[in-house]
């Protein structure tokens, strides 16, 4: 099976993009990709353990939404267990993320969380949720908080939007429907971003859901639903910006279905035997990083040298993150009980 569902078309000619914006998006995607490749290397070298789910291929979604449409560190981001790159886009430092994956005390969750439980209050990054769909209502809670601050506490500055990411598999879970209902009912400032990478571990999306068009499920909640080519960062940025604007204006949530693909297996422990070669090749040919790179060069917003410089810079950043993680101390055994309660 290759792609049966046509990808929505998007004309980049309609986009206004400055050189700075273009390079920012490009760098963020390259950081995501390079970081994940390094994780694979470190995992196979026995530096990180447990379940590690990489994001390769899906970068346009994280970057397009968080870097393209949100104010990182001001707006809230809520992720899944495939969370490294969302955290990076949200501004959590690569050092802190890598150190967390190494289980070090300098990690963003102090070595208590690991790959599937990344958190950063400073960056308003709400996690890191290892159970499918459990982050969806939590994200709605952050959005409710913004509404409450504005309407009950009289804080006129309260205009944060929460971006809530999850996969196609999560859309068959009750929490998806329950939370969409509440978010639409109360017009919460939230955008629900489904990363439809067609697979839930080894379960093909078409085999798991009655109507594979997830964005259409918004309509039963009286909510705007849109589909977007999740391999095109500019397209994602565009729909995310519209959705964020709606949310900020108090016009309620949006369900964005980004059609995308993970280039690697479900996790680093997955032999990835089910997905066909043709299917993988089809999607690899749509690599979002190459696509933006070509666009920037074609539009003369950047040269190949500029792009190379970014790859070099990111490589350094990731090497530095590994060195930092490696040199960082483990949490002290005396602190096993720290952070169980608020007082600790």
């Amino acid at each position: 099976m290759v792609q049966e569902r046509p990808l929505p078309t998007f004309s980049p000619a309609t986009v206004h993009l400055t050189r700075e914006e273009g390079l920012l998006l490009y760098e963020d995607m390259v950081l995501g990709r390079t970081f994940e490749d390094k994780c694979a290397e470190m995992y196979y070298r026995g530096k990180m353990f447990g379940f590690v789910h990489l994001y390769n291929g899906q970068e346009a979604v994280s970057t397009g939404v968080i870097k393209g449409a949100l104010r990182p560190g001001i707006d809230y981001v809520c992720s899944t267990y495939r969370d490294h790159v969302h955290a990076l886009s949200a501004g959590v430092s690569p050092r802190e993320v890598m150190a967390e994956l190494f289980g070090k005390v300098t990690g963003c969750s102090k070595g208590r969380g690991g790959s599937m439980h990344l958190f950063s209050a400073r960056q308003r990054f709400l996690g890191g949720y290892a159970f499918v769909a459990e982050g969806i209502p939590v994200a709605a809670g952050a959005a409710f908080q913004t509404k409450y601050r504005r309407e009950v506490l009289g804080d006129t500055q309260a205009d944060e939007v929460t971006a809530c990411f999850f996969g196609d598999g999560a859309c068959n879970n009750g929490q998806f429907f329950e939370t969409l209902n509440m978010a639409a009912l109360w017009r919460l400032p939230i955008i629900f971003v489904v990363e439809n990478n067609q697979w839930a571990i080894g379960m093909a999306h078409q085999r798991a859901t009655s109507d594979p068009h997830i964005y259409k499920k918004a309509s039963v909640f009286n909510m705007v639903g849109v589909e977007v080519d999740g391999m095109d960062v500019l397209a994602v940025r565009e729909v995310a910006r519209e959705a964020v604007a709606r949310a900020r204006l108090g016009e309620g949530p949006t369900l964005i279905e980004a059609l995308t693909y993970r280039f690697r297996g479900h996790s680093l422990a997955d032999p990835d035997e089910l997905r066909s070669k043709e299917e993988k090749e089809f999607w690899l040919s749509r690599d979002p990083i190459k696509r933006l790179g070509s666009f920037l060069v074609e539009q003369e917003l950047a040269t190949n040298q500029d792009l190379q410089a970014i790859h070099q810079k990111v490589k350094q950043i990731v090497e530095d993150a590994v060195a930092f993680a490696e040199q960082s101390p483990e949490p002290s055994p005396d602190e096993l009980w720290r952070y169980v309660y608020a007082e600790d």
Partner: protein
Amino acid sequence: MAEMFMFNALRSAIDEEMERDPRVFVLGEDVGHYGGSYKVTKDLYKKYGELRLLDTPICENSFTGLAIGAAMTGLRPIVEGMNMGFLLLAFNQIANNAGMLRYTSGGNFTIPIVIRGPGGVGRQLGAEHSQRLEAYFQAVPGLKIVACSTPYNAKGLLKSAIRDNNPVLFFEHVLLYNLKQDIPEEEYLLPLDKAELVQPGEEVTILTYSRMRHHVLQALPELERRGIYPEVIDLISLRPLDWETIGASVRKTHRVVVVEECMKTGGIGAEIAAGIMERLFDELDAPVVRLSSQDVPTPYNGTLERLTIVQPEQIVQTVTDLVRGRI
């Protein structure tokens, strides 16, 4: 002093805390317009508005998750479980998020949330509405668990729970909402982690909580006629257990009966018995005795239901046997 039903004492605790701190809000099914199934939030929405008394759809797991997200980002939600049993549907969010998220986030987030509502065996409500839930939650790290038993302690404890920066599971008992008591007009708070010495005594310690406190009190006159004066302790906090108070009493009496509504298998009493073994074995003159409810789903039939939970006569008999050296 003013005489109050327990539901009113709880209501006034919520009212005072909402008035004091605008970040406090209540959510759950029918907490707003309807005023709560047991009227604990009656008319509060008229004073505080619909966002602060948020009527939710029937989606326990998600509205609990929503409350947790709000707590993580600075609000102080009170979730009402219309019946605490329904919150079994929210077990995921309660255990994974309320309980563990402070830890997994390495202290990045705190979850100041109260999850409260009616629990326990009611009167012929059938198994699903008459559950003993506290043991299901006692193993979840990061939660505090409190059971109130009188209008006085209900008010003081709930106010403290709302101010606590941790997730607190707050058990009320369906059959105690209409209990009446004089309670002070002036504000008071009670500690969440302290057991209450209900009656000092000798020869035997009775450890109990929630509605069973009242069954124990009903057993006391007959025990007194038999010349037995047990020390009665209401545990109040089921997690953490107040080992200081329990220990002091065991050192004095050397015998323990746990009277609980919880199921025997894996119940609160099981935890207490094991804890006493570990900490106070040398103090014991007899084995710890557990009077727990029967390991059956709560039957609908009134006679069977009565047989399921511990009755005062049973307490009289067991305490007598223990004190007379027959156990």
